[in-house]
């Protein structure tokens, strides 16, 4: 399949070329690819696909958390090999807050590791905590927070490092629908204000349709992009665009592309 390219690789923020991931074993599992993708600087790109199609694998290889079996990945023109490049932040689906640290110390973790000055740490942590609406809980421990707030702590811990590319692996997967919508709004605000490029893995078509500039639809395993949907939303948007007639059309297109793949993943034939 032709790369889902923005046309000029020079301005692509992150690029995947012919990326394949096969998990070795007695029966090797071909999880992903071959797959091509160009992420434009500052775009909000979502990935949807059937369960087990390799969405999280895609995120892992793009982040440098897992090596591709074949193909090349680059971020800001440099190859991603063996470690997570500086400038990439990752938010996981699971609660990855540190239960032994307060919210403030959780958020400051990466900056302290990077050896930032205490005054700089205090300033950036205060901003990130305020940005995520956690001011009243700065000295609380994660166990004292709801699931949504803990996820906000994890986003703040990523945000404080000012990543230029933020990878989110179903970060709202464990949250109720209302909280997801509100968290989506916060994510859009973060994206607008930081100018970061965002790649969001999600299984929720409405979430992808609401938040993204583009949505990549993946096939059943091994995951490949089978459709690319540009939403055409204004940059200044929030969850209220759900009332826009275009929202239904986008969601319907995503489902039309995804339905046969989801049925395939469930072992059924599309009708």
């Amino acid at each position: 399949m032709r790369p889902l390219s923005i046309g000029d690789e020079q301005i692509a923020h992150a690029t995947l070329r012919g990326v394949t991931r096969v998990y070795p074993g007695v029966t090797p599992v071909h999880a992903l690819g071959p797959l091509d993708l160009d992420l434009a600087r500052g775009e909000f790109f979502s990935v949807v696909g059937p369960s087990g199609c390799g969405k999280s694998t895609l995120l892992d290889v793009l982040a440098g958390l897992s090596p591709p079996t074949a193909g090349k990945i680059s971020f800001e023109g440099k190859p991603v090999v063996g470690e997570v490049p500086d400038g990439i932040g990752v938010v996981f689906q699971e609660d990855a807050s540190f239960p032994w640290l307060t919210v403030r110390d959780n958020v400051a973790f990466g900056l302290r590791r990077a050896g930032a000055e205490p005054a700089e740490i205090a300033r950036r942590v205060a901003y990130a905590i305020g940005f995520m609406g956690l001011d009243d809980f700065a000295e609380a421990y994660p166990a004292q927070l709801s699931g949504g707030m803990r996820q906000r702590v994890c986003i703040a811990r990523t945000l404080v490092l000012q990543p230029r590319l933020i990878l989110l692996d179903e970060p709202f997967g464990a949250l109720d629908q209302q909280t997801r919508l509100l968290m989506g709004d916060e994510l859009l605000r973060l994206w607008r204000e930081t100018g970061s490029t965002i790649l969001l893995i999600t299984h929720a078509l409405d979430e992808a349709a609401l938040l993204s500039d583009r949505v990549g639809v993946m096939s059943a395993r091994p995951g490949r992009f089978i459709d690319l949907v540009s939403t055409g939303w204004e940059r200044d948007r929030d969850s209220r665009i759900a009332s826009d007639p275009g929202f239904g059309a986008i969601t319907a297109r995503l489902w039309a592309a995804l339905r046969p793949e989801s049925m395939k993943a469930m072992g059924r034939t599309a009708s």
Partner: protein
Amino acid sequence: MTRARSIITTRLVLIAGAIGLVELLCRLGIIKPLTMIAPSQMAFELARMIASGEIAAPAAYTFMEVGTAFAISVVAGAALGALVHAQPRLRRALDPVLASWYAVPFFVFYPLLVALFGLNALPLIAIGVIFAAPAMMLSTLTGLDRVPRVMRKVARVHRLSRVQEVRLITLPSAAPHLFTGLKLAFAYSFIGIIAGEFILSGGGLGYGIAYAYESFENRKMYALMLFVLLIATGVNGALHVWDGRLARRRGRT
């Protein structure tokens, strides 16, 4: 009164009531002095032994043995736990051994330990370690098993070295289980060494209790038993309070 304070009060009333009942039964002669002396007499005798310095040498000997066994058990148990955790094949091989560890009466190996280490404190310390180290090892294994896989990814996202990952993420994440290991290691090393002294040693608090028993020195025997009880309860209580504080902070109950 809060619920927690109410529970503590009830607990203290129950303990005080039980001690008061034994005191009463002893004072009324229902429990004969040759069987048991009154708790107040135990306390007086213990106070006398402490004041006279009579208890200092055996206590110091036992504390040295327990402290050494505890330290070795914690270090060796944690190291072995980490090693076995990193080697799944080794773990599968060791699982049945660890599961049946406490079914083995290790005191029967005392002659072998004497032959190996000589007639000194080392055989008893070895017995303490044999009892305590596996508890620490099993707690370490459990703790490392419970470190969420996502934490490993978080460490990589923050580009931590392996040492930084262990220090900043793995150890704090496994801390509740490691703390349980510490509590068990203390309890097992204390039990192992007191029991060992009781039947195999020529010194220490366990030996003192056994010697007093054989010499019909009831007051001294009960005073030493009270001392051992107070030490075990005190240390365990302190660890329990500490653990409770850590647990509340992390949202465990």
